[in-house]
């Protein structure tokens, strides 16, 4: 079916809210230098200073401005989330296409690979690898990309294989279309909806993973990351500092995940014919 995703999203209440939530995040990330009142890497004053007019959320244990840390943390979260989502989706797509076009043996190998990867507890392996690689932003992007592609690949492969059997592809090849044409003009466009959903879900999962790793302290300590903030703050959990130091990054993580989840849910329900009661077509 031809659906305009943008319209679908805007029509869907959840989708609308999710879009607004995510847009705000993106704006904050882009405008971080202008929004942040202080340089979050610079010592501002007495560590663990409670909130004041100057430091709205106080200072952390090494005297950095917590609000500015939060604002810069948005950048890390989105950068990691979006990069991993894009790269892992690309891997998934490449494998799915290879499985569909490469013949039975290639497909079997790819399916096997996906199945094995799906059995493995991804997060535990991420921790294991991360311990040795002391990850910065780039390493964590590479690592999570390599670990997170399998679920997407499974769905995309199944979909690509079923698309391949569709008659309009047979029709195209009966007009003399080659594999390249079929991939670019039919398979990939037909996969767009699924790719979009996968991308959104991947951002959500990555944010989860990144926050978890940082919470365990497995992240470059010079980076500004919400998970890392919680990691440090949790050592001071029984002082009053948790109210302005621990809660805000936690809530922001939830905010981000929920924002993307809302978009994902809206997209999925517009894709699932069972859940789509009022189909809004465009093209008139």
């Amino acid at each position: 079916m031809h659906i305009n995703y943008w319209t679908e999203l805007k029509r869907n209440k959840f989708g609308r809210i999710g879009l607004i939530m995510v847009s705000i995040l993106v704006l904050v990330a882009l405008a971080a230098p202008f929004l942040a009142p202080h340089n979050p890497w610079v010592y501002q004053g007495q560590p663990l200073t409670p909130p004041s007019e100057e430091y709205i959320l106080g200072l952390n244990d090494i005297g950095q401005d917590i609000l500015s840390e939060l604002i810069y943390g948005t950048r890390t979260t989105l950068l990691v989330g979006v990069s991993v989502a894009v790269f892992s989706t690309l891997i998934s797509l490449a494998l799915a296409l290879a499985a569909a076009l490469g013949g039975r043996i290639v497909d079997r190998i790819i399916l096997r690979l996906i199945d094995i990867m799906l059995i493995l507890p991804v997060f535990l392996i991420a921790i294991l690898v991360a311990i040795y690689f002391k990850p910065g932003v780039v390493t964590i992007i590479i690592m999570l990309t390599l670990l997170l592609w399998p679920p997407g690949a499974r769905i995309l492969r199944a979909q690509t294989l079923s698309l391949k059997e569709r008659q309009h592809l047979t029709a195209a090849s009966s007009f003399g279309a080659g594999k390249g044409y079929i991939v670019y003009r039919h398979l990939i466009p037909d996969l767009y909806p699924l790719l979009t959903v996968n991308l959104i879900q991947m951002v959500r999962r990555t944010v989860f993973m990144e926050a978890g790793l940082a919470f365990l302290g497995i992240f470059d300590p010079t980076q500004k990351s919400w998970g890392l903030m919680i990691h440090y703050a949790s050592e001071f959990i029984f002082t009053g500092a948790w109210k302005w130091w621990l809660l805000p990054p936690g809530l922001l993580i939830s905010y981000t995940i929920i924002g993307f989840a809302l978009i994902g849910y809206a997209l999925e329900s517009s894709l699932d014919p069972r859940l789509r009661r009022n189909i809004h077509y465009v093209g008139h």
Partner: protein
Amino acid sequence: MLDINNLKVTFDTRMGEVNVLNQVSLKIAPGERVGIIGESGSGKTTLALSIMGLVQGQVQGSIKYRGEELLDKREEDWEKIRSKKISMVFQNTGEMLNPVYTLLDQVMEPYLKVNPGKKKEAFNRASNLLKKVGLREDHFYAYPFTLSGGEVQRGLIAMALINDPELLILDEPTSALDALTRAELIRLLDEIAQNKTILVISHDLSTVIKLTRRTAVLYAGSIMETGPTESLLREPKHPYSRALVRAYPTRTTVKDLQGIRGEFPSLVEPPSGCPFHPRCTQALEKCSQEKPCLVEAEEGALACHRGGIITLLRGENLVRRFPRQGKEGKEIYFNAVDGAGVTLKEGEILALVGESGSGKTTLAHILAGINQPTEGKVYFQDREIYSLKGREKKDLRRRLQILFQNPQEAVSHRMMVHDLVEEPLEIQGIGDKETRVQGVKEALGLVGLPGDSFFLHKYPHELSGGELQRVTIARALVMKPKVLIADEPSASLDASVQAKMLKLLMHLQNEQGFALFLITHDLALAGKVGDRVAVMFLGKIVEEGPTSEVFRFPLHPYTELLLDMAPSLEREVPSLRRTVKLKEEEGKGCPYYAHCPYSTELCSREEPPLKEKGFQRVACHRAAALEKKNNNNSYYKEIKKVL
């Protein structure tokens, strides 16, 4: 007896020189019955008049009668030939008899000319003849304007016979007569022809087939094909002959009529090369440059650069094996298509009939080049299609198109009408953006859809089932294919839309001149559309032949069953002539054995091969028995007696 050689007849008119006959050669042996068929304007009558020495215009070439050159004869010589040796019954156009003399007087006149004064003899002979042609005495003295068309025609025949000529030329002897009179006249002429040589000129094929044994097809002054009348009319070799036959309605025609595409050519400025090439579906460049000679072929002669209607698509011994889950998860194989062979000729409609599961769709996909057969070969114009590579393969895709069963699935729902129809052109890299848009609009126009921007920008789900099917037809036709394979194109549509769709397909087939391979489970429908019909059962072709033959005389019990079960509006519930019995040994014998009411022990042992039987081919040991049964059918006996 009569030997016409390179006869050329031209007329000078205000518009210029008109070429009515062009290098016409025809031999007629004593006692032979020859027919000449063709559209009006093809020069039939001029040919007859030339033989009679009555033609107005420049005549070149030669017409020899018993070795004598007729064209050298002077008027006084002719008087000794006409009526006495060669006589002609002119086409009755209304005033062939002089209104001021009685019929008898006019019939006697030629006799008296030859035998002056022998009035008594003349009277006896004339009244005998008039009685013989079925006129009563009160007609003898009637003035022509009081007679009916049939009575005048009889009179004309009597007049032509009065001097007992050797050669009788009948020009449209049955035109403008009602069916009963015509039947009577044909019987009369048939009787007369017993001891005469006759040349019948007619556009009425049913008259020609009954009166003649050999026929020549005349088109725009040229003979296109000659051959035994029956096989020429049942299986014409020349595209024009087939077009002529296709346009002619008979009682046994089941198929809808199709006219001949294009217009009859101007005789003032005749087309260069083969006169038929502008209307021909298989014309090559050569056809427009060089006139083909009449070349002797088996049983006749043919004037066609391409050697007659060519075979476009041919599948031989096709087998397609599929794995299937067997007992205990074992993989077993079954043959969806099991040794089927199909030939599709240029510009024809072949209907493939069979119940669901008989392998029709698989066969269609094999022939369309999208499902490689496990065994067997598919040839498109003598090139094996699955071994084609690169450019040639791409070219094949252009000329061979398939319409899928369900239009909903055959289109991408992401694409708009314009993109859908344009897609084949884009893939093939034909034309630039602008010419492609033009092509899309033309293709849509062909199938009766608007080409405006509003429609071009519609999505498939915004179209009705019929519209969408038309779009897929337009998409298939946009590359002007030579072959269109249509897999139950109307199965998903309701009856009223289905009728329109098939009419459209037939119309397009005729106008665009592609060959249509139509797959359907509905025999009634196949009969309406197909020139030929093939019946498929369990992956095999069990019977094949011209639609009219197969419908009248089904030779395979399965065809008979399908015919009985074909939709009808009769209230009676048809009795299913179908048995269920077990074969002694699975995998041997006739595949239809289990259901066959006529089967014998031989059928359970040996698989019948596909054998020629008249114009049909049938794979049945018991075909002879079925044929006999058909012949005994009282209904057909009745019909035969009337004719």
